[in-house]
């Protein structure tokens, strides 16, 4: 599978038009339904190759796109979400510097 190809499991004859937000492989138990004791086994079953991780992030991105950005009449919600996500991201990468601006010595 080269860059830009469809996932290996995707078969247009069976699956129809390609949906980038969908996982076409064999479905495992959803994370929300996994019991705590089975969490290790569940995580062990995951495919942790770079391409699989990239695919998972890409699907999440498209799921968010389909839900908040692509509908016909969207509000400001996706823009605010991006804003807040950026704020948190940049706060965390700059945290090492911001730390020095603390006003109190003891907490």
């Amino acid at each position: 599978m080269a860059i830009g190809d469809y996932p290996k499991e995707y078969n247009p004859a069976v699956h129809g038009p390609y949906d980038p937000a969908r996982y076409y492989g064999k479905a495992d138990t959803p994370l929300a339904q996994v019991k705590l004791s089975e969490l290790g086994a569940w995580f062990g079953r995951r495919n942790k190759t770079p391409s699989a991780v990239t695919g998972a992030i890409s699907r999440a991105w498209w799921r968010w796109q389909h839900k908040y950005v692509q509908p016909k009449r969207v509000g400001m919600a996706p823009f605010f979400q991006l804003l807040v996500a950026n704020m948190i991201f940049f706060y965390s990468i700059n945290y090492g510097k911001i730390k020095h601006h603390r006003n109190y010595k003891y907490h």
Partner: protein
Amino acid sequence: MLSRVALRSVAGQQSVSTTLVARTSATSTEIVGVRDEKNFPRPVRGEPGKVRLGFIPEEWFQFFHSKTGVTGPYTFGVGLTTYLCSKEIYVMEHEYYTGLSIILMVYYATTRFGPKIAKWLDSEVDKVETDLNSDRVETLKFLEETIASEKDAQWRAQGQELLVQAKKENVLLQLEAAYRERLMNTYQEVKRRLDFQLEKTALERRFEQKHLVDWVVTNVSRAITPDQEKQTLDRCIADLAALAKK
């Protein structure tokens, strides 16, 4: 649909040609199988996801409802903020106040101009959609008009059949009229000739009769001698005298 058929036919051709050449290319991506509509339905463009406070997904609140009640998520949010602030994990440095003023401005702009901009953008969205749809709608309209005109043409063709039938009947009528006219003509001609013959015969007979009568009279009057005439006259006078005596 069509593209899938095309893909299938291309794949079929490839598999044939690649058996002759080397099996190096990715011919293993065979496109075979039955469409699974139940597990893999066509994606549908839905409504945008619901959010609260401008950006927090509704699902987050629903996740809390069963466990903590309706105020739970808000309590959690306030508690978390308090924790982050009090432990100075979130540091209120100079940028914090910049952020507060920016949030105020964004809030004011959103509430003040938001509805108007949303209305205008929605109208633009509708415009784009009608633009994209217009081709299809107009094609449909054109096809419907074509169907209507075709039906009209068929109706007219039926009328044409009636007309042709009427014309045929008309021709038959004309033929009949011509036939009768000729029949009448023949009758009259025959009658005229017969009448002529009749008249001719009658005339001939009349002439013959007249001639014969003339001839007989002439011959008879010629046969009467003067003696006979005198005798007859005398006889007549004697008869008249005898009658006068009576």
